[in-house]
């Protein structure tokens, strides 16, 4: 029952300690991790955003420069001059002075027929009238095509600028090497698995990515509607989750994408996470260990305290029993003593009178004398009881003598030696030599020993042994005496009452039931303690411990 209570308390203590340790530990750990995660991903995203922003600016600038160059030409030069291939060639060479990315230059009339061409292919006379780009260029004024292979079998794109001159409209169109984009996006160095590419609205790759695909492949990529600025998102393409930084170009409906492996990019974060998990696990183990240790040691101490308290309670109960008995005994003894004294005197007076001559001659003289003797005998018996009661009740200070316990035991034993040997009972002594001498009351101790020996002889009745053993206690602060008999032993229920006053198993008239009560009270008064162990059928042992100093 008590054990259950302690187990519950132990678990409760552990649970409370764990709760109070884990709540701050985990909130701190997770809170820090969360802040760190947020800051770190912000930084990673910020880096990607900057990168994609820079590339976008570069590409947009490149495109706008090209458009500006061509627009300036278209606006400043006249169709008549430009349709002259010689002049166009001159213009082309001037253009190429600034940028090698111009592959060719052509002038197209309003019907879509190429009227002049400078470049590596014989394109003069080609009819673009049906081409979609031609229509768009004529309608919007500027058209930038997607990258394509075309006749040139070389990735490039076109910029077409239309100009209204008088009642005619003509188109200046240049093919531009798209290699510049490749080199621009390739310059984005992004670890082992990072990549960068440009996608057209139809998810067609405008540049050659580092991994997996070729130019003009159509990527399975989510539809990203046009948005301002840049955006960083994490999603899966082709079964692999990646971090994508994206931005739409200003000059063209192309999506510039920088792809990064979040595992690689967030590696320090993952390391931090593992470290955190490790720290939390280690911390948890420590906390659990600590909680269990504290709970266990607390409960252990409580159990010890509880036991001590129980022992103290038991001894206090015994002591208060003794004290209560003392008062009662004194009261009763005094009240009984006076009538006893009168009976005694009356009997004495009768005895005095019986000695007279004429009474001696009476036929009943013998009966009278016998009656008086019996009265006197039994008054003495009663007196014995009252005096023992009073002796028990008195609070006389014990005397202090320097005693050799072994010697005292031997002396006491000698009183009973005759009685014992008559009954076939042997005394066996197992004394520790050089036993510390004690400061105590010899006559009171003798009374206790005598009492126990007496009881032992009664318990054995005939043939057996009484073993007397003495030992110095721990630190030589105490002397321990054990007196064992080979008697019939004491039943458990009797054992509990053995020191109780008036408890006796002897026949009426043989024992007062006060011997062990008085022994207990004497030993307690002398600062020692006495207890008894017994096994039915095997014998009983009284253990007495006495302090060396008083």
């Amino acid at each position, binding site marked *: 029952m008590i054990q259950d209570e302690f187990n519950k308390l132990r678990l409760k203590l552990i649970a409370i300690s764990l709760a109070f340790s884990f709540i701050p530990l985990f909130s701190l750990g997770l809170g820090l991790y969360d802040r760190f995660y947020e800051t770190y991903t912000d930084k990673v995203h910020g880096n990607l955003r900057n990168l994609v922003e820079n590339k976008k600016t570069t590409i947009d600038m490149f495109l706008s420069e090209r458009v500006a160059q061509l627009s300036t030409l278209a606006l400043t030069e006249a169709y008549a001059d430009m349709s002259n291939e010689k002049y166009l060639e001159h213009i082309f060479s001037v253009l190429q002075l600034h940028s090698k990315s111009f592959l060719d230059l052509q002038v197209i009339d309003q019907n879509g027929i190429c009227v002049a061409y400078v470049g590596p292919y014989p394109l003069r006379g080609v009819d673009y009238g049906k081409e979609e780009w031609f229509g768009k260029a004529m309608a919007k004024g500027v058209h930038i095509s997607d990258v394509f292979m075309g006749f040139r079998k070389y990735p490039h794109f076109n910029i077409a600028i239309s100009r209204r001159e008088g009642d005619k409209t003509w188109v200046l169109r240049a093919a531009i090497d798209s290699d510049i984009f490749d080199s621009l996006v390739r310059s984005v160095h992004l670890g082992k698995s990072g990549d960068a590419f440009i996608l057209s609205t139809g998810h067609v790759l405008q540049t050659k990515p580092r991994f997996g695909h070729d130019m003009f492949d159509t990527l399975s990529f989510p539809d990203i509607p046009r948005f301002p600025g840049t955006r960083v998102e994490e999603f899966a393409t082709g079964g692999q989750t990646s971090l994508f930084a994206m931005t739409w170009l200003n000059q063209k409906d192309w999506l510039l994408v920088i792809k990064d492996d979040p595992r690689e990019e967030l590696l320090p974060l993952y390391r931090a996470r593992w470290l955190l998990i490790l720290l939390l696990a280690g911390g948890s183990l420590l906390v659990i260990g600590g909680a269990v240790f504290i709970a266990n040691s607390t409960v252990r101490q409580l159990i010890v305290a509880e036991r001590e308290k129980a022992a103290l309670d038991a001894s206090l109960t015994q002591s208060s029993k003794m004290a209560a008995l003392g008062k009662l005994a004194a009261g009763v003894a005094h009240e009984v003593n006076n009538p006893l*004294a009168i009976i005694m005197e009356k009997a004495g007076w009768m005895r005095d009178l019986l000695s007279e001559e004429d009474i001696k001659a009476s036929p009943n003289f013998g009966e009278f004398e016998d009656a008086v003797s019996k009265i006197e005998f039994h008054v003495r018996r009663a007196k014995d009881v009252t005096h023992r009661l009073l002796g028990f009740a008195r609070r006389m200070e014990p005397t202090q003598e320097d005693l050799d316990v072994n010697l005292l035991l031997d002396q006491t034993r000698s009183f009973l030696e005759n009685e014992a040997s008559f009954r076939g009972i042997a005394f066996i002594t197992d004394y520790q030599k050089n036993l510390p001498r004690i400061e105590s009351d010899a006559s009171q101790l003798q009374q206790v020993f005598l009492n126990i020996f007496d009881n032992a002889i009664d318990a054995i009745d005939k043939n057996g042994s009484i073993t007397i053993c003495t030992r110095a206690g721990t630190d030589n602060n105490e002397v321990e005496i054990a007196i064992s008999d080979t008697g019939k032993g004491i039943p458990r229920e009797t054992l509990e009452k053995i020191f109780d006053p008036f408890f006796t198993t002897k026949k009426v008239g043989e024992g007062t039931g006060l011997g062990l009560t008085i022994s207990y009270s004497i030993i307690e008064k002398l600062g020692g303690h006495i207890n008894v162990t017994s096994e039915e059928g095997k014998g009983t042992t009284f253990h007495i411990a006495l302090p060396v100093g008083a």
Partner: protein
Amino acid sequence: MDFRVLAVDDEADFIETLVKRFTYRKIPVTAAGSGPEALALLERDPAYDVVILDMRMPGMDGIAVLKELKKRHPLLEVIMLTGHASVEAGMQGMSLGAYDYVLKPVDFGELLEKARKASERKKLNEARAKA
């Protein structure tokens, strides 16, 4: 038997029997039922040798009577009767000048013996005082 006894106890039956037993032995004895009565008796006739004085009496107890007695009649010997089986009660009496103490119920022979010795000491002291 040349000594006189004054027996003081509130138990009438006890004191009465005690008187009878002393008288039976030809020892002059007077009974007093309380301390004040005993002191009054002594006031009138101080020629007692031994006082047998009970410790426990209502009103003035044995110790108080003993103190008063010893103050007024220092040479008078007192034997305390005590129901207390304790040495200390007797010792207390003896420290206050009692000759000895006897435990109740009384062994008359013992009491007689002690009374006789007490009277002898009283006579010895009287002789010394005169000398």
